[in-house]
């Protein structure tokens, strides 16, 4: 064949990646709307996107939405920040100190594999129904993912780079700051990214166990009163914040560790 036929790739190239993603969301919403209009036309079981929009607007107008979002936001951000700092520090410590590694490893493995959200009621008992019990749950869910990734990052530093730097007379401190740490950065970011989803789950589940305010509390209350539009409204805010934070991380990765992408 001499004439070049149009390949499927030519058609795909007409759309930017974000356009494809947007189209996917819009068609998903459309299918959802159709199903709730014609297949499961009972708002007790499935709220339509339109009803969810209305519920969102209502929550926004009464000012209720802001209070829930602010409470959950504070719990998530405080827990996440604490977990990030502790996680990176402990990860660096156990990667460089074998005594610390052997001392802490059983606890880290144990806690990472355990669904620590189940301990939520205990923390509410200890710390009360306010934000602190939720923050602790978020910390516990996020911190081990960060520790494990940070440690793996430092340990996976290429021996070739270390030897090259040694041949130029690098000291152990220089090796750490000029090779191990930059080489571990993609792993640390991956651990932090993993922590976003885990942290959001922590906030919601901990709030379900007992709280006065927050998106988890809103979900629980809506479910109890069979208010599906409100329940979906809360869930879609969580989903949107998850998507937003993941996209922010993608930008951060492109800036901080451009060599991992090509």
């Amino acid at each position: 064949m001499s004439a070049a036929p149009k390949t499927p790739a030519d058609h795909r190239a007409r759309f930017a990646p974000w356009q494809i993603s947007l189209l996917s969301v819009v068609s998903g919403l459309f299918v959802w709307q159709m199903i709730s209009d014609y297949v499961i036309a009972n708002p007790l079981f499935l709220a339509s996107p339109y009803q969810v929009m209305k519920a969102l607007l209502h929550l926004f107008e009464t000012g209720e939405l802001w209070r829930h979002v602010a409470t959950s936001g504070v719990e998530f951000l405080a827990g996440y920040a604490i977990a990030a700092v502790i996680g990176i520090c402990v990860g660096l410590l156990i990667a460089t100190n074998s005594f610390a590694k052997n001392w802490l490893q059983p606890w880290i493995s144990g806690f990472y594999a355990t669904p620590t959200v189940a301990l939520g009621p205990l923390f509410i008992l200890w710390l009360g129904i306010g934000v602190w019990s939720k923050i602790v749950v978020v910390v516990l869910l996020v911190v081990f993912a960060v520790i494990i990734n940070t440690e793996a990052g430092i340990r996976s530093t290429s021996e070739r780079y270390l030897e090259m730097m040694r041949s130029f007379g690098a000291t152990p401190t220089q090796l750490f700051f000029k090779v191990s740490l930059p080489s571990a950065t993609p792993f640390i970011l991956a651990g932090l990214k993993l922590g976003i989803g885990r942290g959001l789950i922590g906030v919601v589940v901990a709030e379900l166990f007992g709280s006065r305010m927050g998106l988890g509390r809103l979900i629980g209350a809506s479910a109890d009163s069979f208010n599906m539009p409100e329940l979906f409204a809360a869930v879609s805010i969580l989903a949107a914040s998850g998507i937003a934070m993941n996209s922010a991380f993608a930008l951060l990765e492109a800036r901080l560790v451009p060599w991992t992408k090509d």
Partner: protein
Amino acid sequence: MSKLVSKGLSKWFGDLHVLADVDLTVEDGEFVALVGPSGCGKTTFLRTVAGLEQTDEGAVFLSDKKIEGPGRDRGFVFQQDSLLPWRTVMENTVVGLELAGRLDPSEAQRVRQLLNLVGLGGFENYYPRQLSGGMRQRVNLARALAIDPKVLLMDEPFSALDAQTREIMQTELQRVWEEGRKTVLFVTHQIDEAVFLADRVLVFARRPGRILEDIRINLPRPRNIATKRGPEFVALVDRIWQLIEKDVRESVLVEKS
């Protein structure tokens, strides 16, 4: 005078006698190539001079000073370029100076000239992933030269390149070397590469690793592609090949079994 002297150097890896009683003197400004079959200890010898391996017996002296570990009087050019992917060409090249705390504007200017010399002018701000294999090896070379070492230690630096790029890099290395005439120890398994570049070719033998023959190459410089077709060149390559042929065949059999 930066004379490099190895006296009675011996080394074992467990039961394996990798280097047996290596005696060698390399004069200032000499280009010495080390060839031999795999497992003959040529790379181990180079790494020992770099201070990356310990000696079991004997010692290596540089300017009458015993080598105890890595030092900035020796610049190592690695087989795999080992460029740090998060650093630009410039940042990779100055790494030795930076580690020594010797990086200042005038040194940076000197490094920029060095990058020009190896043919990388204008690529200072590129990242390694944006460069071809040949260009990365130029950075590898410039990085070693940047610390202005007394001796340049090169460990099969062109072995990962394709045949055409390798030919070009050999000529380029010769050109760069003519500019400064540093002492060079160059490990390779390519006999023609050794003869093309070196003033002296040390032929290594296996089990135990030792210097079999020390051959002076008196081909006029600068050498070019035509040099490789000359009868003198071909005769030298042939002679070295005959010296190591038996060893190479044995080493191939060992690797297969």
